[in-house]
């Protein structure tokens, strides 16, 4: 049923106001876990009762510990958190937690003193420590972790949780600014030291901590990856805006990365079962293990799952019993019988015992829901919430269950909801097809998700591989950096706000916008409308043949796992980039890469940058920013300034303004935002397109790296070897120093490239690959060509095979690409088709061409006029008994040939004085026409 989207029926209170940063919080990873463990509670999952139990207990504890808390309050400054409010708080207010922290607050002094020494403790160690605590101290320790969440909260308050730059607001108020910066740093220290919470870190930080040097911070931050990011930047700035002493408290939410709630550990990105109704089935017993469908007992021996009904069976309960789990698909006897049309009844459970449905069964029967946690937070009133992204079962989509749907298939929707944590039942695993294929025995709660379902347009879209790929993480990281810069820059916040809202609007399916799809203001608005109403069957059910797999891997768009044959060059690029980044000055760094098309220039550079990025993520290299520009994709060379500036700051200005700003940044060394001191790597593809008449664009770009403190590294890619020499000397002296040549591939390299792609696919004869690579190496050494030839050859083989299968006798066909196929592909690709056209053209055209050749031989001149040619033609015709058609007809014939560019000719209205010339060598014409059947006499004149 299309209308029955989960959200509508969900009964737990929904937040009217959605946090505007939800989009961002997906990409960045909020840090710090909070783990209110409740070891003393029974392990009942997620009922409100349990939470209340938990909280009330903590209240008791809090009361015991009230004194130290007060002391702390004194310390933490007066106005910020109103003490009264806290005291009066009920069970559900944030106080409950804060009070809990107080227990540990007592330790503050010591911890504070420990200072930086402690800071070296690795997160894992802390983790383990925590865990130990959790075990030993039981009740009290659950708060041991909570301080962190508090930290988080303050990060939120202060903004700049992980931004490196002072926001404008801060700059405005100098004093406050200094304070907060320090606070931030101290916060950092605390993050690393796992200090516990102090209500107002700002003040405390001032008192106790000293800023650590930025570099150290930087590296620490990197090392810990996104882990330590509690709050996204947008959130940070936003809440900073609201640092209004009076109402500060009321508006805050605390975001976490991981929450231990009610005995389960929930992390952002986890998938969970969610109760459908609060009343229903919460008291149902949820079996840990599935029961056997035959003996209705749990956990006795190995169970096997039927691929049809998903029922579980003990191996020995089957008839006949199985010794081990068979390979491949297995269908139980009941299902087999049902398929044959028999009436089958599953064995009934023994008297008095009700068959208990597992969560999986409930989910697939839509008695439960599944959702993916996008963010976790604690509300002001102390309840824990998460923002969930619903999964939907095929039956609930508009198109219903489609025949190719798998039993355990779910769709991810673009429907979000804020849900209270207590409606979570437990975790489940929703996997991508790749993972799913590997997950053999990971239990019952495994689901497959390959598509996203748009609840508004009822359409499907494949999930971009980016979501779960390593590459994707890189991309995400990139986004992060960019957004980081965005926020750090000096625009007014209102603008950011707007952007934020816009992005929100984008994420939320709303219908009331009037933004055009192709203008950037709309951010391609409405593009999510694109989707299929039904997932086409051929995509899912088709089993690829070897040839088809070969074709797929040979596609240019398929990124190879490794880049063979370019190790040396890649190493060189790596040393260049690394040297440039690590060098403090990085003066005049410019690398010019040249080589013919299709030799892997851009790909190698990008691969190097990926490697370096992963090193940056690992923390061994300082962060940098990377800007990629393609000269051919710019509307005009000057636009490169706009593009670069936009990539660096996220703001779009005219190119003149951009040039001025970039000049300020690179030449004058004015660093406006904090992130600007990162080295910047600029990759310019198709550099030759930037050459203007006075070459000012190239000069500007290549001049920046020579400026001290510019920290700009330029990598230029072009085809011509001598581009620097063609340019003005002042440019070539800046660019031509360091060069790297990508030579054309030789045939062994091409062969290696092709066979590395074809590894594991038995579709090509070995000689066929060699033939293709030799041919391409002899002509251009272009890897794209080689791949395309092989793909085309596979296509031809596939075509022949499919045709022959349809024409019955398929015994002779082998689905292997042979030399003949490759040869056909090469012919098609490299041979101009003019010979064939000449062979098949009309009689008069043949005579015309012959006359051209004859004329050429006679006069030795390539160019002739129509008058002369017509004379020759009429001579030829009359002497060979052919009727001469008349000048006008002949003119038309000539023009036709001119259209096909077999001859080059002037416009037809020149008539008698029209100039004509053969476009192909006369030998080709002779070859084509020598043995024409209808005009055998032509051979005489050729």
């Amino acid at each position, binding site marked *: 049923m299309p209308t029955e989207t989960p959200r509508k029926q969900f009964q737990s209170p929904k937040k009217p106001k959605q946090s505007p940063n939800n989009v961002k919080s997906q990409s960045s990873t909020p840090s710090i876990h909070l783990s209110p463990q409740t070891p003393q509670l029974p392990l009942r999952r997620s009922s409100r009762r349990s939470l209340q139990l938990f909280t009330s207990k903590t209240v008791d504890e809090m009361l015991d510990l009230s004194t130290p808390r007060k002391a702390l309050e004194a310390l933490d400054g007066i106005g910020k958190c109103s003490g009264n409010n806290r005291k009066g708080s009920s069970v559900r207010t944030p106080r409950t937690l804060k009070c809990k922290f107080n227990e540990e607050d007592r330790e503050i002094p010591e911890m504070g003193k420990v200072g930086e020494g402690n800071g070296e403790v690795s997160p894992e160690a802390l983790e383990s420590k925590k865990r130990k605590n959790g075990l030993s101290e039981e009740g009290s320790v659950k708060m041991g972790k909570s301080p962190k969440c508090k930290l988080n909260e303050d990060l939120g308050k202060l903004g700049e949780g992980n931004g490196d730059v002072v926001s404008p607001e801060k700059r405005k108020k100098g004093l406050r600014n200094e304070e907060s910066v320090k606070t931030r740093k101290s916060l950092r220290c605390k993050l690393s030291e796992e200090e516990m919470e102090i209500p107002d870190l700002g003040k405390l930080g001032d008192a106790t901590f000293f800023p650590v040097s930025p570099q150290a911070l930087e590296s620490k931050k990197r090392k810990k990856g996104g882990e330590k990011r509690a709050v996204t930047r947008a959130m940070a700035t936003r809440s900073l805006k609201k640092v209004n002493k009076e109402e500060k408290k009321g508006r805050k939410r605390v975001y976490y990365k991981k929450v231990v709630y009610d005995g389960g550990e929930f992390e952002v990105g986890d998938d969970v079962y969610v109760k459908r109704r609060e009343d229903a089935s919460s008291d149902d017993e949820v079996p840990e293990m599935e029961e056997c469908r035959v003996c209705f007992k749990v956990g006795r021996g190995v169970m096997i799952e039927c691929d049809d009904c998903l029922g579980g069976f003990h191996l020995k309960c089957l008839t006949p019993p199985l010794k081990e789990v068979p390979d491949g698909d297995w269908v139980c006897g009941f299902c087999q019988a049902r398929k044959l049309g028999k009436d089958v009844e599953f064995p009934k459970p023994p008297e008095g015992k009700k068959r208990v449905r597992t969560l999986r069964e409930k989910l697939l029967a839509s008695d439960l829901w599944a959702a993916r946690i996008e963010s976790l937070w604690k509300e002001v009133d102390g309840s824990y919430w998460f923002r969930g992204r619903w999964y939907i079962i095929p039956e609930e989509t508009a198109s219903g269950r489609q025949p190719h749907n798998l039993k355990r298939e779910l769709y991810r929707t673009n429907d979000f909801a804020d849900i209270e944590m207590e409606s979570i039942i437990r975790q489940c695993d929703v996997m991508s097809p790749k993972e799913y294929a590997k997950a053999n025995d990971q239990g019952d709660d495994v689901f497959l998700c390959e598509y996203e379902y748009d609840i508004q347009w009822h359409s*499907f879209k494949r999930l971009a591989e980016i979501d779960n790929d390593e590459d994707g993480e890189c991309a995400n990281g990139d986004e992060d950096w960019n957004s980081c810069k965005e926020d750090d820059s000096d625009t007014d916040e209102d603008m950011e706000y707007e952007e934020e809202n816009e992005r929100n609007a984008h994420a939320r399916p709303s219908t009331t916008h009037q933004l055009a799809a192709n203008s950037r203001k709309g951010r391609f608005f409405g593009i999510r409308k*694109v989707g299929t109403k039904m997932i086409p069957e051929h995509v899912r059910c088709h089993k690829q043949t070897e040839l088809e797999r070969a074709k797929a891997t040979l596609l*240019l*768009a398929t990124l190879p796992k490794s880049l063979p044959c370019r190790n040396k060059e890649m190493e060189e690029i790596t040393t260049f980039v690394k040297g440039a980044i690590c060098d403090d000055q990085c003066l005049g760094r410019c690398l010019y890469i040249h080589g013919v098309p299709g030799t892997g220039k851009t790909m190698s550079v990008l691969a190097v940058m990926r490697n370096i990025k992963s090193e940056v993520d690992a923390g061994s290299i300082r962060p940098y920013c990377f800007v990629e520009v393609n000269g051919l994709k710019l509307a005009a060379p000057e636009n490169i300034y706009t593009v670069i500036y936009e990539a660096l700051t996220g703001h779009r200005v005219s190119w003149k303004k951009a040039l001025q700003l970039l000049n300020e940044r690179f030449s004058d060394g004015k660093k406006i935002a904090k992130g600007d001191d990162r080295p910047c790597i600029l990759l310019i593809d198709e550099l030759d397109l930037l050459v203007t008449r006075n070459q000012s664009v190239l000069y500007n770009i290549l001049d920046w790296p020579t400026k001290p403190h510019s920290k700009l590294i330029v990598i230029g890619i072009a085809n011509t070897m001598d581009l620097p020499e063609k340019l003005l000397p002042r440019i070539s002296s800046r660019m031509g120093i360091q060069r790297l040549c990508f030579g054309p591939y030789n045939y062994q390299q091409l062969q290696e490239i092709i066979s590395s792609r074809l590894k594991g696919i038995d579709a090509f004869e070995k000689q066929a690959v060699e033939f293709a690579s030799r041919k391409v190496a002899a002509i251009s050494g272009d890897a794209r060509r080689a791949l395309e030839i092989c793909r085309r050859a596979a296509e031809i083989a596939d075509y022949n095979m499919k045709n022959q299968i349809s024409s019955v006798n398929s015994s002779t066909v082998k689905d292997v690409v042979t030399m003949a196929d490759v040869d056909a592909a090469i012919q098609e*690709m490299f041979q*101009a088709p003019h010979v064939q056209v000449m062979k098949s053209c009309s009689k008069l055209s043949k005579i015309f061409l012959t006359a051209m050749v004859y004329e050429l031989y006679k006069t030795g001149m390539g160019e002739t006029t129509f008058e002369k040619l017509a004379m020759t033609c009429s001579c030829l015709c009359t002497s060979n008994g052919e009727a001469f058609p008349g000048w*006008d007809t002949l003119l038309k014939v000539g023009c036709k040939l001119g259209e096909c560019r077999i001859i080059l000719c002037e416009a037809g209205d020149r*008539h008698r*004085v029209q100039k004509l010339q053969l476009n192909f060598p006369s030998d080709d014409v002779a070859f084509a026409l020598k043995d024409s059947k209808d005009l055998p006499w032509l051979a005489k004149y050729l």
Partner: protein
Amino acid sequence: MGREKEKEKPSEKALNLLRSRLSDPNFIFRPLSDSPDSNYSKLKFIISTSVTEACNNSILLLGPHGSGKVAVLELVLSDLLQQYPEAISVIRLNGLLHSDDNCALKEIARQLCMEHQLLFSKVASFDDNSQFMIAMLRECGLAHKTIIFVLDEFDFFAQGKQRLLYSLLDAMQSVNSQAVVIGVSCRLDVDQLLEKRVRSRFSHRKLLFLSPSKEDTERFMEHILSLPMDSSLPHNYAAEFNGRLKKILSDERFKELIDTYLSFNFTIGHLVRFLFQAVSYMDLNAGFLSLGNLKTALSSNQRQLKLESIRDCSVLELYMMVCMKRLEVKEQTSYNFYSVMTEYKSIHDSFQTSDYYAANVCLRAFEHLLQCQLISFIDNKGHNQSVEFRPVKLLISSAELHQGLKSYQQCPAILLKLMDR
């Protein structure tokens, strides 16, 4: 009267049927498309594999005008649109209209927006549009949708910097998209026009559209011209029509006629136009196609235009052309109105012809010749010069001129003499 009407009906119907057949590319090209060697099945295979196997392709359809490139492509596209509704969106561009990169990208964005019911903005810049296109390629790839770009008159896209082709093909090799670029061109050397980095990204599938063989042509003509026996047409009429057609087709004279026609032009498009003409000449009273109809069609096809325009000239104009021809014989390659006039005068002086006109009358005749394009200016220089001073050139050969004079009824005998001398 009523009976007559009824009588006329079958032949009129037949005429309508034949005409509608001849203007329907679907009917013309369908029978040529079943064999596995035909371009139709090859093209269909390539496009449908890129739909089902999610890959990118770029294809060139080459062949002279009238060989049915676009017709076959449309046939394939309509078939595939039926087979995979929803999964295909076709973007059509024409090089004659959209050879400018900026305008082409805008048009692509517009059609993509139309296709997916998105709002289109006219003011979006080149960058916006190209980014939009790439985003759409990606999204459509994720949604298992194939975008087919049909670039008619492909050679016009291969001019200048070729930004459009580059960004299109580069997106296709880097984004996980499903797209097919189909270039249609009559220039056989069009792939040589591509810049080398564009060429490297092009996947170089080429389909060559050639003229059909002679046997095919005959079969094809029979297929088109014979009436269906099981239609609303009276049975005897159709039978007789087909019988006569068969007779014509097997007639030696007909074969000769078709040979002369085909020796001049060999493509299906032209043949269809020729048949249309022939069918239109069909005598409705007789109700049957005759050899005469085909003959008239052929002769109307092979008109000697220059000779005909000589027929329309005045005697004075003939004089002027003969003068020019004489000048050329004297190896005076460049001449203008005044040099022609001197020659004219000298002829008049030596032969005392009766046709002597004043200079301004001659100038009018001269201008008329220019309008008929029997003569033309040698170059485009000197627009500001007056007509009589600009050098001109005779556009008709002496052989044609001679022929024209002979067929001219009131041609003075002296002119023919002058031609020979």
